[in-house]
């Protein structure tokens, strides 16, 4: 019992800091950001902020949001996190159409291709499916029950993703695994048929994304991990096609003696609209690493580092709409003790996020950002954000991720010490 309490204590301390997240709807109309428990949405087309309303009487998020996502048709938006609430929003009205309580804290969400089933994963490794067709507005409380779809055995699920054709659901976990499961016609009966496991990472898998182009509409899978690599997979067979070590790139821009022994983790991936590039966010790297992706030759190679002039900005999350060659990034965190404001965020945009070489991908100045000052005011909460606070946030996010996902190593003495309370050891004395 003592041991359990101790572990719980550890958990609350390390879960305090959540990275800020960003998501774009597929038509590039809305930018959505989560910072701590705060959800902020901006309408790019009308140039104004959106206020989120919950007419069903459910409460807003009370704790850090860990996952946000638009559906493929742009009609739904889902947010979920540490307060165990999964909230489904209609992007037409920005009203919350359903709030479901998860048993455990939620770590990832995804919406199926048809836009009907919302899937979310909890920190005990169970993925649930929620049928949004049963929310008819009038009797919403009746069938709002998520059913377990699949499970990784007691491992934190870090990312959920549907294959472009919608036939498979992919789940990545802290135990280095990516599981590819057939998404059945009726997911409410569970997804029992495993297509493959993509095994090869040597640390936690942090993010998944699909890269597609005209020749490969079914796409290939790319994954990022705590082992400082981005890997390309044939997800139907689970075979590893290519590995790209990005750690060295990240180390160059900020060689910090203290961190030399631990490899910087890949924190997010975002492919561009034509599948020629993948943007990679890495701990320690101020800016974005662009990988060029050749699906015919099954190759990933480092194209360039897009650095951010004049400030240190290590993105915590990336987003892009498939209709625009534009990469959105955010960095920030919730509940930092160091900073005076409770949560802070910095939003930047990279233009020319395309494989065309004549135009260089560059970071857009704040004055030229789509949406302009109103967008920054809405999403960042203020126009200017102190650089010190931003680097403190990056450090805190990094520590939190590490504590959460990397297995604790105990020395032999420590392990023996932990055993001393065991009944069978006590008897001997």
């Amino acid at each position, binding site marked *: 019992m003592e041991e359990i309490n101790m572990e719980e204590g550890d958990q609350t301390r390390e879960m305090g800091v959540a990275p800020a997240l960003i998501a774009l709807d597929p038509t590039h109309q809305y930018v959505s950001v989560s910072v701590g428990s705060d959800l902020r949405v901006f309408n790019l087309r009308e140039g104004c902020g959106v206020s989120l309303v919950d007419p069903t009487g459910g409460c807003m998020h009370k704790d850090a949001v860990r996952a946000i996502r638009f559906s493929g048709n742009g009609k739904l938006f889902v947010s979920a996190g540490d307060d165990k609430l999964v909230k489904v929003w209609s992007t037409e009205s920005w009203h919350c159409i359903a709030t479901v309580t998860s048993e455990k804290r939620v770590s990832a969400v995804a919406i199926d291709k048809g836009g009907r089933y919302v899937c979310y994963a909890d920190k*005990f490794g*169970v993925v649930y499916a929620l049928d949004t067709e049963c929310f008819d507005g009038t009797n919403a409380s009746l069938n709002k029950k998520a059913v*377990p779809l*699949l*499970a990784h*055995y*007691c*491992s934190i699920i870090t990312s959920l993703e549907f294959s472009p054709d919608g*036939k498979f659901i992919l789940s990545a976990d802290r*135990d*280095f*695994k990516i*599981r590819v*499961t*057939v998404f*059945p*016609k009726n997911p409410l*009966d*569970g*997804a*029992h*048929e*495993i297509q*493959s*496991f993509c*095994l*090869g*990472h*040597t640390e936690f898998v942090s993010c998944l994304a699909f890269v597609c182009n005209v020749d490969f509409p079914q796409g290939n899978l790319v994954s990022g991990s705590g082992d400082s690599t981005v890997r390309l997979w044939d997800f139907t067979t*689970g075979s590893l096609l290519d590995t790209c070590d990005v750690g060295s790139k990240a180390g160059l821009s900020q060689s910090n003696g203290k961190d030399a022994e631990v490899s910087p983790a890949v924190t997010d991936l975002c492919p561009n609209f034509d599948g020629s590039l993948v943007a990679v966010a890495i701990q320690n790297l101020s800016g974005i690493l662009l990988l060029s992706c050749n699906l015919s030759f099954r190759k990933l190679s480092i194209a360039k580092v897009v650095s951010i002039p004049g400030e240190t900005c290590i993105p915590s999350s990336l987003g892009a709409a498939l209709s625009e060659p534009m990469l959105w990034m955010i960095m920030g965190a919730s509940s930092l003790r160091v900073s005076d404001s409770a949560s802070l965020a910095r939003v930047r945009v990279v233009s020319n996020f395309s494989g065309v070489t004549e135009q260089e991908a560059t970071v857009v100045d704040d004055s030229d950002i789509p949406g302009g000052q109103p967008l920054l005011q809405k999403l960042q909460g203020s126009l200017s954000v102190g650089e010190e606070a931003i680097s403190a946030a990056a450090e805190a996010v990094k520590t939190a991720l590490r504590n959460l996902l990397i*297995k*604790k*190593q*105990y020395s032999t003495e420590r*392990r023996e010490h932990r055993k001393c309370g065991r009944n*069978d050891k006590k008897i001997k004395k």
Partner: protein
Amino acid sequence: MEVECNTTLNKKTGLPRKRFYRARAHSNPLSDSHFPVPTCPAEVDYSIHYPQFDGLTKVQFADIGCGFGGLLVSLATLFPDTLMVGMELRDKVTEYVKERINGLRTTNPGQYQNISVVRTNSMKYIPNYFEKAQLTKMFFLFPDPHFKEKNHRRRVISPHLLDEYAYVLKVGGIIYTITDVEELGEWMKSCLEGHPLFKALTEEEIESDQVVELLTSATEEGQKVARNGGQTFPAIYRRIEASFLF
């Protein structure tokens, strides 16, 4: 505590003496593992485990929670050309089985070359050891019952873990479960019954399967139950094709 290696062996039979390998009866499958785990099945070096085989033959039988290895030892001579592996979480017990196999190999030259044991948490790492549809038989004999409802997720047979077992089992492959705890027997049966990729063997199939009687007679736990005149509850299911899912 350290005992010299050769004194732990029985002088007459060359087999390890159990009293030097006492372990706790239970181990928590939920805790983080601190033993090496292969990244993927291709990384497992079977030439160490089966030195007299060509290194290309794949393991077909897996005894999950093999304990002291009684079943493996019986199966070894019954299927001399089939590779089989026992998986056990408790390191001392794994050491015992290793020594036992080594002893048997020495005293019976040419025999027991097809069995081996690995220390792992099979609830977490089954896909790290076996490819899709690699296994033809899986054994779950006398698993830890985990009576408390709060601990049911530690049970080795559960609806979600069956998905992974179905993945490593070939269509037509058989999963054998048995217990002396009635409640657990019902649980395992209902999990298998409710799973779309498993179908119960018929009475005739069970009778004609020569492995079935080993479930009780070959394992240490089974013998203990028989000695005490206890009852056992088997559930034996076949992996079937997933035709109707899509």
